[in-house]
Each structure stands twice: as structure tokens, then as C-alpha cells.
């Protein structure tokens, strides 16, 4: 009996650690993105930046249920997925700044972070464009018997792309270990999805005989619990799954999208930010459940801020690739 009690205590402590870890990961993504916003608006970062702020619980909840060797594909709004799957802050920033030390030697940039070491097959700047790649990775995993699964992250905008339905059909036919994770943040760029998506999202999956689930994407524990169950089932050979995470993009489509009233109200944004912030919600829960106190959470925020600042310093100081590298890596 004593043993059982101890084990249970250990188990709950492990869980508490995991919940705090998810809090830290979400904070890391948030602070990373805030830093990107800052760098970009100060014209220190070239190109485009699509921020993940507000959607952190989706990437963290799903990736927490994955093994390091499992695959993901990501999107133009992909920093969160990469970090949640284990990417390092310094090499992420370096890539965003176009530096040699970046994940892709500066050749990919914000929308194309890829990293074999963390199973990241790459962020993709074609909406829905990675659905084939993720499904193909699942195909390999099944053929090679590796036990890996592949997660394909995409936004609700990708529901307009035919490729997604083609590969979902094949994934179902061939029982491939792939999970299609739809981040429903309600907007396709600057257009509410009531104007772009007919019918019900989950019945799209049902049409292929794929089990679909919907989850509150602002609740990291709900995302994690659902994802974990789905991942287990998919890994066991049951075939693909479809998970819709109901979430919200707190900021614009990209950093420059600041005047948004023509497509959504400030009040709507404010409501989501004050009532549905995934980090606040999870932090409050940790305190309420006595799994952390405010000082601990503040400590996490501070530690992560220090890590982010250090990573930015690293990336800022890192050299650009020399121009003679421009035609390297075109062919393997």
C-alpha cells in the first residue's frame, strides 16, 4: 500500500512537472514571437513574419504527445510548431535573421524552418502544401516499420486546398499513421472563414472514414489529452486522424497587418485576449491546483526572457552566409 501511494505521488509530481513544462514552452513561444514582432517593427528582421501568438496551446499540446523522432510539418505561421517540437531559440532567431548559423543556413527563413534532428520536415509557405509531405512521411514510417507518426499542422485556410483531401483519402485507404491538425483560428488571412468554409469541418474527415475530433485549442491540457489519445491510436496502426483545434490568432495575419477593423472588431480581439489567453488560462489553473505559485510562474517567465534575449544576441552577432554559398545546396 505504501508503495502504491508513493508511486501515485511520483506520478502526480511527474504530471505537475509536465504541466509546468508546457507552461514554459508556451511562454517560450510567446516571448519568441514578441521578440520577432519587435525585431520586425524595428526593421531589424528582413522578410515576412506570421506570428503564432494566441495559438501556443495547440503546438505545445500536440507536440508534448509526440516522440522526438516523430515527424511534423508546419506552416507559414510555424515558429510555434518548430519550438514546440524542440527547436533551439538561438538557431531559430539566426534563421529568421538570415544568418549562416540558422537552421537552414539562412536559406529558408521564417516560413521554411526545417530540422531533421527534431523530426521537423519543414515549415511550408504554400497553404496546405505540406499535406503530401506529412502523409508521405507517415507512408515511410509504415513501410519501414519505424513506429513513427507524422503530424501535419495547417490552418483552417488549408481546408480550401484540394491536395489535403487527396492525401486524406489515401491516408485512410492505406491506414497511414498521420494526424491532420487543423488550427482553426477563424481567419484565412483577412477573411473570416464563414465566407470560405462550407459545411462542417469534422464531417470532411468523416467522409473519408477518418475519426475527427474538435478540441478547445486555448486549453493546453485538453489539447494534450486529446492529442495523446489520438497519437496512441494512430501509432497502433488504426489509420489517420483529424483534429480541429479551436483557437484564435491574437495579432494580424502578418506583422504588418495592424489595421484589422475591416475584417474583425477590436472588441472580439480583446475578448479572446482577456478571456481566452492559453498561457493565462494554464497559469491560473496551475496556481489553483497548487502545482505552481505566482512566484514560480514569474520565475519561468524571467528565465525564458533571459534565454530569448541571449538567443537574439547570438543571432544578431552571428555572421551572414558568404555570398558564394548562394548556389550551394541546390542539388544534393
Amino acid at each position, binding site marked *: 500500500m505504501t508503495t502504491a501511494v508513493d508511486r501515485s505521488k511520483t506520478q502526480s509530481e511527474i504530471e505537475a512537472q509536465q504541466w509546468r513544462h508546457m507552461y514554459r514552452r508556451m511562454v517560450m513561444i510567446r516571448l519568441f514571437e514578441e521578440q520577432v514582432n519587435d525585431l520586425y517593427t524595428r526593421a531589424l528582421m528582413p522578410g515576412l513574419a506570421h506570428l503564432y501568438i494566441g495559438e501556443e496551446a495547440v503546438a505545445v499540446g500536440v507536440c508534448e504527445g509526440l516522440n522526438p523522432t516523430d*515527424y511534423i510539418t508546419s506552416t507559414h505561421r510555424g515558429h510555434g510548431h518548430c519550438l514546440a517540437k524542440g527547436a533551439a531559440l538561438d538557431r531559430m532567431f539566426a534563421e529568421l535573421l538570415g544568418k549562416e548559423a540558422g537552421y537552414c543556413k539562412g*536559406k529558408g527563413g521564417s516560413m521554411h524552418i*526545417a530540422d531533421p534532428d527534431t523530426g521537423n520536415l*519543414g515549415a511550408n509557405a504554400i497553404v496546405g502544401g505540406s499535406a503530401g509531405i506529412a*502523409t*508521405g*512521411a507517415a507512408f515511410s514510417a509504415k513501410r519501414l516499420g519505424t513506429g513513427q507518426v507524422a503530424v501535419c499542422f495547417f490552418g483552417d485556410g488549408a481546408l480550401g486546398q484540394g491536395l489535403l483531401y*487527396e492525401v486524406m483519402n489515401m491516408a485512410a485507404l492505406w491506414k497511414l499513421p498521420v494526424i491532420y491538425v487543423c488550427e482553426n483560428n477563424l481567419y484565412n488571412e483577412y477573411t473570416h472563414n464563414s465566407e470560405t468554409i462550407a459545411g462542417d469541418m469534422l464531417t470532411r474527415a468523416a467522409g473519408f472514414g477518418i475519426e475527427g475530433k474538435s478540441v478547445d485549442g486555448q486549453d493546453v491540457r485538453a489539447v494534450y489529452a486529446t492529442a495523446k489519445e489520438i497519437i496512441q491510436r494512430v501509432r497502433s496502426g488504426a489509420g489517420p486522424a483529424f483534429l480541429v483545434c479551436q483557437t484564435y490568432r491574437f495579432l494580424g495575419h502578418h506583422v504588418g497587418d495592424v489595421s484589422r477593423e475591416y475584417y474583425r472588431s477590436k472588441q472580439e480581439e480583446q475578448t479572446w485576449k482577456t478571456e481566452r489567453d492559453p498561457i493565462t488560462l494554464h497559469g491560473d489553473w496551475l496556481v489553483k491546483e497548487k502545482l505552481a505559485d505566482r512566484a514560480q510562474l514569474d520565475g519561468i517567465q524571467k528565465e525564458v526572457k533571459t534565454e530569448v534575449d541571449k538567443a537574439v544576441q547570438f543571432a544578431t552577432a552571428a555572421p551572414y552566409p558568404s555570398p558564394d554559398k548562394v548556389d550551394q545546396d541546390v542539388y*544534393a
Partner: protein
Amino acid sequence: MPEAMTATRELTLGEAVREAIAEEMRRDSRVFMCGEDIAEAGTVFKVLTGLVEEFGKDRVLDTPISEAGFTGIAVGAAMTGMRPIVDIMFGDFSTLVMDQMVNQAAKVHYMSGGKWKVPMVMRATLGATRRSAAQHSQSLHAWFCHIPGLKVVLPSTPYDAKGLLKTAIRDDNPVVFFEDKMMYKLKGPVPAEDYTIPFGVADVKRVGSDITIVATSSMVQVALGAAKLLEEYDISAEVIDPRTVWPLDEKTLIESAKKTSRVIVVDEGYGRYGVTAEIASVIAEGAFFNLEAPVKRIGAMHVPIPFSPPLEDATVPTEQSVFETAKALCG
């Protein structure tokens, strides 16, 4: 063909393609094929007949009619340890796979800073005169040549088809391999021994001294026919097949142009902004001061491929049109 290879049989181009795939599938368990009606049906052209019996339906995989989807799956599978061969029944359907080939397969290696590789082959057909009209007859290979990260192969003989396809399957990059559907029955010597043909090495199909005819795919046969007709007028034509249009063996083309001082480029794709334009430009830049006349180009007429036989026949280069152009150039 190397003279040392003696154990040579006659195979059709279709058989050579099949043999190349079968040998590579035996050699490497990661190689698999996917496409529409490729298993029991062996493709509409029956090129793959018998492969499913040897390798099973898992490795000769019939897909739904979803070109973009199965090409995308092949890209992902190639990145993660497999070596897919994608079968696109008609090259016209290239339009459906363009995002997967151009934005995904071609760029994955570069965008990832060289970390992910895409070792896949996309096989497709080209060529008109099969009375299949505008959506089953085009030669769209030039589109792929335009894209950094892809390699593009156009075999003209059974020997080349086998050797080049084996190289394509062993290559760590996405390779687009175009077979002329009118050439599947073309016979030629193919050694029984294992051999490969490197990319970027043109083949002189006929040695000559008065004019160079650069020709691709089935246009090589057209050029050889024209060369025979030219013999009667004491015009000695050299026929060169680049075999791979990317990488392109510029050196061999330029050297031949310098030697003969007159050049015609024949390709079944559209001329405008096409393969003939690129090759003519390469030769003009490389051999300008040795040329007696501007480089001539002969390609498909710039119209959608028509159905009616006399109309369709008027759109493609022929022995006669190449012969007449050459004769005028040498006159």
C-alpha cells in the same frame, strides 16, 4: 555504347524502362512505384506489365486519380527513407503536380540548407501524333528545366532509357524522366549487364561534318532520318542527343557547332521559351564566331495539339521539315 558490352539483346524502349525499374527494385528495397493503373494493368501503355507479380502491390502501388496527392506523398516518402518512382500517365497531367514538384520537391533541399533530400523520380510521357488531342499529347518538359533543383531526362533509345533511368533512381535529387509514348515499341540493343549512364553527357548519335542537328527524345529518330536524306545531297549531318536537358552538356554541343558551323535544334516541345530556345542560345554564345548561319530551331507548332490527323501531323517536326531546313542552311 561501350564496345566491351557484348551480351546485348534487342529490347523495346518500354521493355528497357521496365527492366531498369525491376533491376533497381531488386537492388534497393526502398524503391517503390506509385501511380494510376500501374499494378495489374501495368499502365495504359503496358510498360510496367509483370512488375506487380514480382514485387507485389505494396511496391507497385495503384493510387486513386490524385496526381498532386500521390506526388506529394512521394516527396514526403523520399525525404524519410524511401525512393519513390511516380508514374504520371500523360505528361499533360504535369499541370496537376506542379506545386509538389516545383515548390516542394525542387526546393526542399535548398530551403532546408541541405538537410533534407528528395530522392524521387517522376516518370511521365510526352509526344504527339497519337490522335489524343490537346490534353494528352503535349511535350511539357521545358517547364521542369526552368526550375533549379530538378533534373530532366529525355531518353531517345532503349539503351539510353535503361541506363539513364537507373541513374535517375539512384540520384539523391528529384528527377523528371520523360518517355515519348510513341517510342515504347522502338527496338534497340541493350546489354544484359548492369550499366548506368551519367547525367550531363550528350551522345553523338551520328558523326558528321557539315551541320549539327541537336535533337531530343523521339526527335533523334527524326534527325537521323533527315541525316540520311541529306546524304543524297552530300551533306554530312552530325546528330547529337543531349539525353539530359538539365544538366546540359554544353561543351559537346558547342564543340560540334564549332566543327560544323551550322546548327539546327529539334525538340517536340513548344519552341517559344522552350528547350530549342535554350540550346540555341547556349550554342550562339559558345560558338558565335564559328557559325556560318544563325542557329535554326524546330519545335511543335505554337497551337494546342489538334485532334484531326492531318492537323495534328502539321504541328510536329518531321524528317522532311528537318531535312529541308538543313538543306537550306547548307545551300
